[in-house]
């Protein structure tokens, strides 16, 4: 099912949670809403689910106005951040809930419900936990039961709020892979919210980067990582080295030192963004140099703090270089960005 959001706004008091958001989600997509806390991503997800209502804008499912329908009538499966499993019900009854509350006319009989719950518990590979209570499960198990419960009523969209948020690193990795393969298996349009770039880049087909209630960039994981559209996206995704520069007369200046790199189409005070692993230490001079302040080595790389003079101020950047070129504290080195972006302030 396709979801179309048009000019969605939502305020909480003076705070604009969503500030004119337009988004089209294609059928069968696995989409990530990525952003820091307060960026409006969870509010957007709740609006799609019908748990919150926008102050303005339209939500349509396959061209039909979804705002005319309540949460229960949208055929949306919602997986809550802390799962919100019914604590007084067994795993089986949790999964069966959506089937049991259907109007009598369209409700399955008891055998039908049992068969469907069994099918879902098999799908999430937890059929052996049917008689347990939520408190007797681990975090990863609860997450999968919450998913089974949301899928029981065959929703047309699956929405997940921070699906990996409360899990430790190892379980998180497993569950990411599992969620991807589950999506390939059932192929229902899915949207998940996360503040963790790895979650978004590893799992989603498409990533929506949000900040302060607005969409900053929409693209594949590769696109948002390699071609960040804004300074925010560059800074938020991947690890960046940021230097204050000035662009005048088609040249890039750091302090009063011109840099031998192509100037972008912007002018005035700007920021030079370089991925940490794209900043090389070498003999090739572009006019960017700094003093090594501190070096630490682990694995295949050494990480160095390098102080770069930018006019009167000094900016300390952290870069990774291969260990074969040993850096010494105190020496001055030439810095050479392999790839970079310049964004006006």
């Amino acid at each position, binding site marked *: 099912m396709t979801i179309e959001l048009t000019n969605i706004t939502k305020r909480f008091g003076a705070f604009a949670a969503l500030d004119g958001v337009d988004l089209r989600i294609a059928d069968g997509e696995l989409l990530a809403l990525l952003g820091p806390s307060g960026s409006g991503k969870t509010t957007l997800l709740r609006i799609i*689910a*019908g*748990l919150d209502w926008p102050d303005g804008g339209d939500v349509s499912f396959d061209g039909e106005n979804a705002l005319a329908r*309540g*949460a*229960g*009538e949208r055929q*949306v*499966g*919602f997986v*809550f951040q*802390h799962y*919100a*499993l*019914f*604590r*007084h019900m067994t795993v089986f009854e949790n999964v069966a*809930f*959506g089937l049991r*509350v*259907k109007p009598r006319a369209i409700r399955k009989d008891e055998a039908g419900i049992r068969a469907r719950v069994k099918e879902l518990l098999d799908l999430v590979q937890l059929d052996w936990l049917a008689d347990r209570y939520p*408190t007797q499960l681990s975090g990863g198990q609860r997450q999968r039961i919450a998913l089974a*419960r*949301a899928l*029981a*009523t065959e929703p047309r969209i699956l929405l997940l709020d921070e699906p990996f948020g409360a899990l430790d690193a190892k379980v998180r990795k497993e569950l990411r892979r599992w969620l991807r393969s589950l999506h390939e298996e059932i192929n229902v349009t899915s949207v998940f919210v996360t503040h963790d770039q790895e979650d978004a880049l590893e799992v989603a087909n498409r990533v929506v980067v949000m900040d302060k209630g607005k969409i900053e960039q929409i693209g594949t994981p590769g696109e948002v990582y390699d071609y960040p559209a804004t300074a925010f996206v560059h800074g938020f995704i991947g690890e960046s080295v940021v230097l204050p520069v000035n662009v005048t007369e088609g040249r890039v200046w750091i302090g009063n030192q011109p840099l031998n790199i192509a100037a972008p189409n912007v002018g005035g005070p700007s920021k030079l963004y370089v991925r940490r692993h794209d900043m090389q230490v070498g003999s090739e001079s572009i006019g960017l140099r700094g003093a090594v302040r501190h070096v630490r080595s682990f694995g295949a790389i050494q990480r160095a703090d390098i102080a770069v003079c930018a006019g009167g101020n000094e900016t300390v950047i952290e870069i990774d270089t291969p260990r074969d070129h040993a850096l010494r504290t105190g020496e001055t080195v030439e810095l050479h960005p392999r790839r970079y972006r310049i964004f006006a302030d």
Partner: protein
Amino acid sequence: MSESAIAFDSGRVVVRSEPWLARVVIIGLTMLFLTVFVVLPLVIVFAQALTHGVVAYLAALAEPEALAAIKLTLAVAAISVGLNLVFGLIAAWAIAKFEFPGKTLLITLIDLPFSVSPVISGLVFVLLFGAQGYFGPWLQSHNIQILFAVPGIALATTFVTFPFVSRALIPLMQEQGTLEEEAALSLGASGLQTFFRVTLPNIKWGVLYGVLLCNARAMGEFGAVSVVSGHIRGETNTMPLLVEILYNEYQFVPAFAVASLLALLALITLIAKTILERHLDEGRQVRDH
């Protein structure tokens, strides 16, 4: 290292041994106080009731006046507990699950019956429904009897016991939040289905706890009921009122016999309360898990 460990250990011994005497004195004083002011009176109630033997005790309770008082007390308690169960649930639901202006004021108002003297609570109803009250003439012309009758007693009792159920539920429901209800709604449950299948099972021990305390107070209420009852023997005397009347007439065995029933109610309430608190604690631990 070992030296400092020893010094630390001996330090602890000193700290532990000093308040030993203080502990004994404090615990002893508490026990003494409880014995004199709580246990002894309770024992005396039963002892007085049974001074002329079990037969006299049972005969006193079988008196028509006593039976009428017991019946009235049960009926009034049933009405006020029933009403407060419904009001309390609605009030707790409103406060715990919704944000609205005036919420703090509402929370304060719920506690009003606790902070006001029961006599005032009774007088309020006299002022409203009495012959000279606001609704008095209208009620008289329609031949509706509220004061000096069961409705008045039930109203006063309901007023006095209003906070119990909502007080027991508000913190519990606030702590549980609205996530499970939202989950139920998004799974297609209606409002009523959500209430009966999700909300109520989660607060059932809290509801029982509130009902229990509400009931104990409803049966034992004296002040407010005394003002509105009119003390018509065999008709508008509840058990606490009857105890006072009998005592004032020097009928000690019947007075204490009825009083012993109220004392028994208190003991049962206490035991049930302990059991319920254990369930509530377990629920809390489960949530913290």
